[in-house]
């Protein structure tokens, strides 16, 4: 009977993260996406150490050049090296994407979880979400600039200051979809029996949220995260379009793309670089997210 009653062949136990990695490896798209994203991040942050032309250095004699050995990506209308600018722009754009996404995610998940978990806060928080959905981004940004630019400048210097401002502005205006989705999931998960079970063994509310609720809403959060990076990069570029983004000597992919659209006919390669960089980042992050979501879910991982 013992052999009959013990049908599951026991695998040797493995570390959780090794499992995650194993599953991740099997997802071809995710692996490719991950490698690509890593390459982008590496070239953007480490590239400047290898390519030592300053992104703001103006070499007026060699302006509007096409790709060449000296300037693999060509130069812009003031003779600045496009490759250096792409790297500099990338580090801003990727940082904005990551941090704004992280901010939106934290805010959205927090509000979503709290609204879903505490019935009493649900109504007010969801109306708050409505409010933020209704707020116009531009005036909000202007107000934030007005209120916080000086103190932030004083505390972090002008570049960091505006970076924080823009990241906050994007983060603060893009957490709502995440909150809605997370809330819906939390509402459903809260009714699952394991939550009641956890309560019966004396788990407090905060432990309940962090141990039981959050891991189970990870998958929608991951999806929001991947979309969030893309949205943040694109929002930043739209802000440049509307004249509210980073200062002009602070290149970002969005700004490079926007500046180059005027020269679309004369120097098409100039739109090509930032355009392809944004698209590749978004794509790689998307595949990466798909893979991570699968890898983090033990149910899928087990299959």
């Amino acid at each position, binding site marked *: 009977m013992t052999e009959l009653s013990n049908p599951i062949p026991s695998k040797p136990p493995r570390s959780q993260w090794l499992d995650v990695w194993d599953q991740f490896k099997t997802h071809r798209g995710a692996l490719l996406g991950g490698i690509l994203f890593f390459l982008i991040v590496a070239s953007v942050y480490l590239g400047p150490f290898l390519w030592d032309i300053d992104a703001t250095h103006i070499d007026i004699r060699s302006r509007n050049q096409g790709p060449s050995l000296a300037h693999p990506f060509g130069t812009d209308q*003031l003779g600045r090296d496009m490759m250096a600018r792409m790297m500099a722009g990338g580090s801003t754009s990727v940082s904005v994407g990551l941090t704004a996404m992280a901010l939106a995610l934290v805010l959205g998940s927090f509000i979503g979880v709290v609204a879903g978990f505490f019935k009493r806060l649900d109504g007010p928080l969801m109306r708050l979400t409505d409010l933020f959905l209704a707020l116009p981004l531009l005036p909000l940004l202007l107000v934030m600039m007005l209120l916080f630019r000086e103190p932030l400048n004083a505390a972090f210097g*002008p570049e960091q200051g505006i970076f924080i401002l823009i990241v906050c502005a994007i983060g603060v205006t893009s957490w709502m979809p995440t909150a809605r989705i997370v809330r819906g999931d939390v509402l459903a998960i809260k009714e699952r029996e394991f939550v009641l079970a956890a309560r019966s063994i004396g788990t407090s509310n905060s432990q309940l949220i962090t141990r039981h609720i959050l891991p189970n809403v990870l998958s929608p959060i991951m999806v929001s995260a991947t979309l969030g990076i893309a949205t943040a990069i694109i929002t930043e570029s739209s802000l440049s379009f509307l004249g509210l983004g980073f*200062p002009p*000597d602070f290149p970002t992919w969005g700004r490079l793309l926007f500046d180059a659209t005027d020269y679309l006919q*004369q120097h098409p390669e100039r739109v090509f670089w930032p355009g392809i960089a944004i698209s590749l980042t978004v794509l790689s992050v998307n595949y990466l997210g798909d893979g991570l979501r699968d890898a983090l879910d033990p149910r899928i991982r087990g299959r």
Partner: protein
Amino acid sequence: ERGSDGQVNIIYWQAPSIMNPFLSGGTKDVEAASLVIEPLVRYNQDGVMVPYLAAEIPTVENGGVSEDLTTITWKIAPGLKWSDGSAFTSADVKFTADYCMDPEGGCAQVTKFEGVTSVEALDDLTVKVTFAKPTPFPYGPFVGGESPIIQAAQFADCMGAKAPECTEANFAPIGTGPFVVDEFKPNDVITLSANPNYRDPAKPAFAKVLFKGGGDATAAGRAVMETGEFDYAWNLQLAPEVIAQMESAGKGKPVAGFGPLVERIMLNNTNPDPALGPDERSVIRPHPFLGDPAVYKAMSLAIDRPLLVEIGYGKAGKVTCNWVPAPAAVNSDTFTCDKQDIAAANAMLEEAGYKDTNGDGVRETPDGIPMKILYQTSTNAVRQDFQALIKQWWSEIGIESELRNLSGSVFFGGDPGSPDTFQKFYADVEMYANTFNGTDPQSYLANGLCDKAPSPATQWQGENISRFCNEEFDKLHAELTTTAGAEARAEISKRLNDIIVGNGGMIPLVHRGRLSAHANSLGGVVLNVWDSEIWNAADWYRIK
């Protein structure tokens, strides 16, 4: 022949929001309105006055202007009709003055009527304007596109506080111009058709006008020169390279004209240090180093103006060292500045005691303050390129600059609550362009007077942005206000210009022209920078 040439399409990338220049003052609105309503006299492309609704231009010689320079009497050309068929009379002219001078109306053109004490209709065709004091240049009221005549009958109920409620009149004023409004879609599009009662029966050649607004300069240029969808595009502030590319498409061509518009760097003569309180910052204390002639001269010398012109404006720009480069009569030739000389600039600073003592590439003043400046301007592609270039040049002479660009709506807005307005000037230098209307610079030159400096006391209003203060200048300007005679006035104007430029009020960069484009098939376009750009739309025709 009137109406024989079909439709003409005009695109303004800033859309007109109202057809009443008295309520807006925006160029786009004034120019759109100029198709419909007209002043008594316009300036032509050379800045010379030509009578439109007036029979002649009153002068002291012909007795139209009194000897003591306090009155001017306008004679209206006989037989003029409003587009609704009613007669144009002196009552309309008088009404226009009353309308604008109503204290509650918030008239944008009230400066045109500055010093006017009364406007009387002597008879149906004669109007007499009386000034409080001798006015050597009495051609403010009713002259130029900003001061057209509106119909008394139509606007009778729109005086003062009621002005904004007359939407219909504001959107479709009855005028004497070549066209009448069919439909006005604010901030979008205006459709007009030929005025059946226009004074010249052969004009206008076009039966219809489509006046589209919105978008951006690139798109407007493209629509005229590349796709040929539009016939006329206004104010194409684009990179010369882009303009050239568009022109090569062969459907249209750019035209340029030069008014007194100057792109300049204003130097803050006060100390903008944030550490100073709101009542002192950019108000009282002198700037730690910008006031030194060696500094501002070196800064000016480090700038390669021809390159700026080439990169930023091409055909639509000229190097200038003057604040008032036009009309030609008032353009001073005291300074030359078309050569960049970094070495000389460095030497100048070195000599004046500004040395890089700590080896960080930035000079320090003799008191040890590093020469770091904040350089702000409005958001605009060309300005940002200029900023980058100038920043680099200045860094070569050991002056480090931090760049900041601000949304135009904030920078040029006068909100006293905002720290980012150009009036507050919470920066060391700022770059923008300014100009004046008409051909007489007197009131423009007043922008250099000590008491026009913006300060908390004036709610930060005032046009003396650089807080320039010079006794000699003030005195000379007072003299100008009482001097008649074009030549003498021009002479004084030049001297005023030299004082301010020579004493660190500003660093002029580029004399900017207006660049517009018209389709090759559109004939009769004469670009006018002294009045409405489309002043002679009545003469336009289709080249067949």
